[in-house]
């Protein structure tokens, strides 16, 4: 009997000890999920009493949960609009974490290096350029034998940060795109087929001869998909890579709130369809969570950045890293 009581007491006493284990819950963007889960995993090894859970439910869901305060932090591939931020009780800090890029994936027999400009890409996705032999494409690809065939356009059917980045770029390089379609995670596509997820788009492009779509750079690299070289704002042709994406971020003037689009960036080496991805952090946090978050962010900016490249993400340029390190000091 006494033994049982002792056991019960032991369990009861152990419970508060277990509660000391801190958990943080976050939700949001799917695009940075691989690097985020790596970070949270590695950080758990550094700080065994802290467990960070992250649900990759999509940027829209992340913003919604942050607004309703059902999570400790959010994540998004597109910055929150002023209207969205207005709805949140308290201030939200956008903390850029890594960079990604979107590439136009194509399926053309015997064409190893397709060159495209922003204007041409926009016209293809607007349905104005319908054949691969169009003079506008031929002019960019002198000496390349393009098939005399109709272009099949493939886009994402699910809402995604990838689409946001892609349509943001097209809106910058084409006034008509901006007016007719605009920028969003999901848009009213003028033409084309919808594939679900990167794998859905890549699958359709791979299977359909003479198709063009767009996927994340990491996805294209991992799956050996041919993707086009883009002409950037400086007029140079740049292939997407970790270096050219970081160059795009370095060429942009960073505002204090970090809400910046780096598509169509200036700079000779900049790849034009690049984007930051952000963690959405409350400036004022409850129960001492602010200090824990701040520690994690500091670690992420120092040790975490080195883990990005093997997973295909571009690390923050040094200038931005320095700015962010200073900015996160306000978190309480």
């Amino acid at each position: 009997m006494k033994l049982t009581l002792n056991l019960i007491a032991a369990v009861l006493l152990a419970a508060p000890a277990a509660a000391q284990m801190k958990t943080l819950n976050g939700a949001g963007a799917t695009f940075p999920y691989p690097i985020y889960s790596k970070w949270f995993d590695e950080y758990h090894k550094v700080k065994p009493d802290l467990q960070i859970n992250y649900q990759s439910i999509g940027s829209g869901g992340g913003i919604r949960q942050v607004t309703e305060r059902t999570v400790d932090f959010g994540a998004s591939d597109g910055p929150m609009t002023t209207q969205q931020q207005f709805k949140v009780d308290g201030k939200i800090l956008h903390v850029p974490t890594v960079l990604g890029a979107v590439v136009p994936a194509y399926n053309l027999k015997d064409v190893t290096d397709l060159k495209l400009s922003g204007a041409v890409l926009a016209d293809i996705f607007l349905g104005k350029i319908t054949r691969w032999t169009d003079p506008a494409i031929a002019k960019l690809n002198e000496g390349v034998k393009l098939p005399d065939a109709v272009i099949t356009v493939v886009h994402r059917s699910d809402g995604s940060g990838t689409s946001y980045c892609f349509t943001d770029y097209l809106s910058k390089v084409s006034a008509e795109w901006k007016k007719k379609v605009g920028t969003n995670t999901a848009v009213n596509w003028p033409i084309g087929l919808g594939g679900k997820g990167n794998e859905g788009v890549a699958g359709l492009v791979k299977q359909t001869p003479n198709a063009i779509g767009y996927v994340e750079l990491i996805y294209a690299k991992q799956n050996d998909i041919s993707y086009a070289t883009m002409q950037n704002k400086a007029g140079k042709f740049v292939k997407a890579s970790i270096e050219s994406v970081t160059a795009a971020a370095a060429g942009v003037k960073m505002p204090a709130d970090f809400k910046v689009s780096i598509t169509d960036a200036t700079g000779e080496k900049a790849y034009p369809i690049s984007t930051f991805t952000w963690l959405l952090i409350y400036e004022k946090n409850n129960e001492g969570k602010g200090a824990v978050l701040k520690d994690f962010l500091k670690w992420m900016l120092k040790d975490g950045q080195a883990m990005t490249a093997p997973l295909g993400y571009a690390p923050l340029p040094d200038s931005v890293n320095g700015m962010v390190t200073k900015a996160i000091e306000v978190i309480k």
Partner: protein
Amino acid sequence: MSSAVAPAVSRGPAKVPGSRERAGDRLFRLIISGFAGIILLAAFALAWQLTRESLSTWKTFGLGFLFTSTWDPVADQFGALPFLYGTAVSSLLALLIAVPLGVGAAVFLTELAPKRLAEVLMFAIELLAAVPSVILGLMGIFILVPVMRSLGAPYGVGMLTAGLILAFMVLPYITTITREVLLTVPRPLKEAMYALGATRWEVVRGVSLPFARSGIIGAVFLSLGRALGETMAVTMVIGNAPKISANLLEPGYSMAAVIANELAEAASDAHLSALVAIGLVLMGVTLVVNGAARLMIYRLGKRS
């Protein structure tokens, strides 16, 4: 009254366990009524929640939401017609293909096939019913889509491809249920027909199928319900373009697919509300279909 007649000796002991049992019965009835109530409550809560969350869409667009075809999340302009059209057309296509096939297969299994073969085939068909829809969708992408393209469809994905996948999906339902009903056709009825010199075809047409009619209709509506709500497999092969085209080889879109695709990233309230509104419509359509099925089976039952 009976207690007055019953001998006094047996009254006591008989009453005690009896009344205790009645109390137990009451408790049991309460509990299971509670279970049934939960189901009802869940259905109402679902309808209530969907209505509440989609209220702003109905306020903004009214019933026009069901009859316009612009779906533009950037401009917050929403119309559900292409999705309604896609869901209806792909599901009807599926039934058009699967009903004759399924009923035919069931007739073969009950009337013609040797018993051993029928058993093996039934096992295979039941296995087919257990295949998850995402697997069927993958099969669609890797097998059906290239086949469709090689047959001359411009993209391979599209309304007809979705209809075919759905047909494949509901085929086991129609076959299994129809077979079950055909097995209940009384032997004497059939034997009487044979005795009159009827051929096998005449027996099937004159006795078996009319007898099994309500069961077959039930199977068809059950399948329709499944086809209307199918999400994953359809999303993977329908092409996901919110356009209305009479050409079945062109891409389309369905209600369930657009919800699955866009809900996670719907950041604006209007977009979210429009997606929930589509959910409400889909629920309504499913209810109407099921109601119609009940009514039809009830009427047929009364007539015969």
